[in-house]
């Protein structure tokens, strides 16, 4: 008793309780152990970044590397990465908040159909069709989130239902209205180059043209370069990644995302609006799918009810490769950027090496397995010691 109440006059003599008072200034002698390497490896995006550079080196050593790493080849695989990255970033935030959205792929198909039908059948202006698709996405995301939050059912099941419902609606409505499963010539009757360019244009076209005239990049016989600029899909991807990264790590809302996925009950007890966080992220994934659908429709000029098949799984895989913990509460969007890069690189790399693209899925499976193992290892490292909560 006496020992407990006795106040230690200086820092050192408080040591009897295995603790010391904070002395003014000076580093803590217990902090020394963490080296730079451990600190680096503790960052959740490190595994994915290392994986990306390893994949780059592997393909550099294989035949076809010159084509893969040419400006044209790079732009192609970056576009593939961008299209995946747009939805993977959204999926990652949702996974960090502890939920899944399996309806992303179907939402891509559905949003395309909405744009196509609105423009072709209802004679909406192009921006109107796109607006309608985003409205449908907000509603879908809201319903997904609301059902998950209110019923406390696993989002895996709830969004699996949405996966089938949205896909069924896409095919059913399109066939009922047009008698086909594709909606062609969407851009024909509605010339709206400004809106289309927002999703399908290129940035820095002048610069690329100038580089072509200087003879620095490959050009056609008429002098126009093969790569006319940076596709808008890449711009959207990088912008959304930067924005999502800022929100997740710098804002109050980002803190709530981590807390919601870390332990929803504890988060709720300290006043985090867990339901609102989840619902807003379901809306974000649906909108990201719609953005991708819009880009694809602008690019192809047509909508197809089978668009986006299996994209939900690719998005989840890219997030996991990027170091996002499947059980929630931990991860980064910058890792997902590398996860998407690996995906695009492997897909194009296999094409350029001349390996039968049938093997892409085998490769993909192996990459996923490695990613999950690394994911687990990093999590343990992040906690600084073995396993457990």
């Amino acid at each position, binding site marked *: 008793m006496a020992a407990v*109440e006795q106040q230690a006059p200086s820092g050192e003599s408080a040591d009897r309780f295995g603790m010391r008072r904070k002395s003014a200034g000076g580093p803590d002698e217990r902090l020394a152990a963490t080296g730079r390497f451990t600190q680096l490896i503790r960052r959740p995006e490190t595994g994915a970044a290392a994986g990306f550079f390893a994949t780059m080196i592997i393909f550099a050593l294989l035949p076809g590397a010159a084509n893969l790493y040419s400006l044209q080849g790079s732009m192609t695989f970056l576009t593939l990465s961008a299209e995946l990255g747009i939805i993977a970033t959204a999926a990652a935030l949702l996974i960090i908040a502890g939920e899944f959205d399996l309806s992303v792929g179907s939402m891509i198909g559905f949003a395309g159909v909405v744009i196509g039908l609105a423009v072709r059948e209802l004679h909406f202006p192009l921006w109107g069709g796109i607006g309608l698709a985003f409205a449908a996405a907000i509603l879908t995301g809201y319903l997904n989130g609301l059902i998950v939050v209110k019923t406390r059912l696993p989002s895996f099941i709830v969004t699996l239902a949405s996966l089938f419902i949205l896909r069924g609606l896409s095919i059913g409505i399109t066939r009922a209205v047009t008698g086909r499963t594709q909606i062609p010539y969407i851009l024909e009757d509605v010339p709206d180059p400004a809106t289309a360019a927002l999703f399908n244009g290129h940035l820095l076209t002048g610069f690329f043209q100038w580089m072509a005239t200087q003879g620095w990049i490959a050009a056609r016989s008429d002098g126009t370069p093969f790569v006319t600029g940076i596709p808008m899909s890449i711009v959207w991807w990088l912008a959304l990644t930067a924005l999502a990264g800022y929100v997740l790590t710098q804002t109050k809302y980002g803190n709530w995302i981590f807390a919601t996925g870390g332990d929803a009950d504890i*988060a709720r007890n300290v006043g985090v609006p867990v339901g609102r966080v989840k619902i807003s992220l379901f809306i974000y994934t649906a909108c990201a799918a719609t953005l991708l659908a819009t880009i694809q429709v602008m690019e192809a000029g047509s909508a197809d009810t089978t668009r986006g098949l299996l994209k939900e799984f690719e998005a989840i895989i890219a997030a996991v490769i990027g170091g996002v913990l499947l059980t929630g509460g931990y991860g980064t969007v910058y890792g997902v950027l590398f996860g998407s890069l690996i995906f695009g690189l492997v897909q194009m790399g296999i094409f350029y090496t001349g390996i039968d693209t049938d093997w892409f899925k085998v490769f993909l499976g192996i990459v996923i397995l490695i990613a999950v193992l690394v994911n687990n290892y990093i999590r343990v490292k992040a906690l600084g010691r073995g396993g457990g909560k």
Partner: protein
Amino acid sequence: MNVPAMELRGVSVNFGSVKALQDIDIRVFPGEVHCLLGDNGAGKSTLIKVLSGVHRPSSGAIFVEGRPVAFRNPRDAQGYGVATVFQDLGMISLMSITRNFFLGREPTKSGLPFSRINKEFANRTARQAMADIGIDIRDPTQAVGTLSGGERQSVAIARAVHFGAKVLILDEPTSALGVHQAAMVLKLIVEARMRGLAVIFISHNIHHAYPVGDTFTLLNRGRNRGTYAKSAITRDEVISIMSGGEDLKAVEAEIERLLASIGNKAAAPAFPPP
């Protein structure tokens, strides 16, 4: 000092036909450590849930600083300055000390495109709040999951103190801890007491409760078996009342009879050497 920081008057809690708590009176004053002691099933968990706002009493009243209150939930209770550190500590292991410390109360500053958490301020404040109560944390950005049990408990207590708790309720804060870690938490309890907080310390471990407690309320089978100032009761008396005194003697006598009846068999080694 005459107005209790928190008071329960005639509180009973029924779950269907089960009377979990009957007619409990408790008063705790600022600068006092009030220990609630009881064996398993004594009603400690139910009582803490009433104090913290998880359960509403079936009858009776709760007063905070003399005013009657009805907590809707733990967060509501916090608004009255009644902070509870539950056994899960209300902290998320994968998040950093600072992020946990300010969760739900993040300090922000303007930023583009959205206002951002003021991390320098948050880290500094979390560190300072810990230092104020005598805990030195290595790095406020490390995950709570990397801390020891005692350190986690300390962060949770520091958070409650920093955000202006007048009544600090601790649910078995030392039960899962080793000797050194428990001592660290007990010292924090004394520290909180010296700052004028009313501390309600729930425990079934008299050896942890007795050194720091000023007042002891003993619970048994949902009833208050008496509230004693420390000067009025010894450690052994507390143990005796907690375990139901006469009951324990009866159990001891029964065990002795049992041992006597098996006599020689028990004395012989179970596995005689070959």
